[in-house]
């Protein structure tokens, strides 16, 4: 399953870091963040729960930038 989310991130470098971090998340096959269109595309592994995965991705992102946000 592949889904695209709107995100809020302020700096391009942070978006890069978030992408690297989010890729390490369990249940995630691939993550792409486009800083320019402020969108995150997450490809989930089969059987992964979207809510749980996205919650922990958000948690990881908030560690990079305090006021980062993902709309999911």
């Amino acid at each position, binding site marked *: 399953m592949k889904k*695209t989310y709107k995100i809020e991130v302020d*700096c*391009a*470098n942070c978006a*890069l870091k978030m992408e690297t971090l989010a890729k390490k998340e369990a249940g995630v096959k691939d993550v*792409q963040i*486009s800083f*320019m*269109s402020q*969108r995150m595309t997450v490809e989930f592994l089969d059987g992964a729960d979207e809510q749980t995965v996205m919650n922990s991705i958000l948690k990881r992102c908030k560690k990079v930038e305090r006021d980062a946000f993902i709309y999911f």
Partner: protein
Amino acid sequence: MTKKQKKMLSRILFSAAGLAALTFADTDGLLRFFLYLIPYFIIGYDILFDAVFGILNGRIFDENFLMAVATVGALALGLSGNGNYTEAVAVMLLYQTGELFQGYAVGKSRKSISGLMDIRPDHANIENDGVLLSVDPSQVEPGSVITVHPGERIPIDGCVVCGSSSLDTRALTGESLPRDVAVGDEVFSGSINLIGVLKIMTAKRFEESTASRILELVENAASRKSKSENFISSFARIYTPVVCISALLLAALPPIISIALPNTSPMWSVWLYRALTFLVASCPCALVISIPLTFFAGIGGAGKAGILIKGASYLEALSKTSCVVFDKTGTLTEGSFKVTKLCPAGIPGEKLLEYAAFAEYASSHPIAKSLMSEYGESVDTQRIGEITELAGKGVISSVDGRRIAVGNKRLMEHLGIKCADCVCHGTVVHVAADGDYAGYIVISDVPKVNAAEAVERLNELGIKDIVMLTGDRKESADAIARDVGISKVYSELLPDGKVELTERLIEKAKRGSKVVFVGDGINDAPVLSRADIGIAMGGVGSEAAIEGADIVLMDDDPLKIPKAIRISKKCLAIVMQNTIFAITVKVCSLILVGTGLAGMWLAIFADVGVMILAILNAARALAAKNT
């Protein structure tokens, strides 16, 4: 400016004013230190906070940490010695100003680019018991009748059932002339109703309508990153540790060496400060921001010109095109039949056409339609008498009392009339009046107006390998190819033959160069997806084309292909300029800072300066219109 940015601007102004006031104040000692702390905290409190937050989360060496350590270090140096606190505050000020500008510029260009593609309809008007209700378009079922007022965007694809108007389809096709629609015409979501009120019977759900599909395509474009963008990610992975180790060496090595040497002092604080400055100067921001910005702007600019590119990777690959493969019908040609030759015998040409048009008046055959459109005037039915259709041969009608036979060679043979032999591609229509041969008309598919120019432009771009594929007969294929200037033609191909041939061309192409296939997406979807880059023409409304292709041309102008390649080349040139410029300036400033020739001011100034220039350069990609 957002609220956040406005707040930052006032912090910058207050802090700058404070710093300016303090330069004139004559204070010393601890009082001086505490007074300078006021503008320092105004401008830098969030950075200090974020630095602590970063360390708590196990992230050392992020920008905030570096800024905090560097400025606190500078304050400490000032306190222990010369009483110079200006540098700490000024560096913080410059850094924040740079960040603010970057945020503002990026936000601005993001908005203007997204604005280009903003075709999202926000509501649909649906009539319920005589009352017009405004509802969310996703709730409208297919087959409902919606009302679209002048100035509104058509939310869902459908068919006009009442009213007539002009539509602005610029966002969909890039075509600036309004399109007139009346009852029975198909309309696409995303176009703007200009004049009259239209009632439209919806044919699809909102999600499946043109506007939604195009938006989805544009939004997903971001997830296909170009190689250059991936290059930056891998660059950062090597760059960051290298910079950190260099800084560590810079702090430790020179003092240790000078301890070993006689008569020199280690100068620990000087080298530590240089190492910190080195770290502050190392942020690769300009690179990280400018490359995706360039591709984003390129995709936006192309979108404005009616070229939808599904991802930065395709925009990048397009610049490496070495071979363009065209489908014939509907791509290089109009895909419809037109009168291309009048050969009268014994009567004027106009008369020949008039006879043919009148005789074929009642026929629904495509050939009759092209005769009618070539004739152009309305047919006076009073002049037509009895009409007899001979299946597979043609028609015999009475026009102005004369017996006109219009049809193929077999009809002429059937009537015992000797007709001219002609060697030409296309369909030949013979005409006879009262048993006498009157000449023939040739009807064939014609090349698009811009087809020849498009091929020429591709040649100018250095693409020598231009190929035409078609399922059509050899003679017609060769004739069209000659007209548009293509020398490599493969005709009489079945659909899987096209795939095979494209695969052979891909194999033959040099490593790293790309094979582009251009088709109309109707029966060449497999080839579109097999080619390195598939370009579909006349994409609006054709689901298969939008799905199978990597690039969709909203209208069917072949000139858009060389244009897309030029946009791609321009984007890559900008990316190259920015990368080289940013890395060069970065390396220079790191060397200057490391050797102590430049201070923290210059380092930050270089960083912000490079970033601003890189952003401005990237924005050039947006002006794809004149490319």
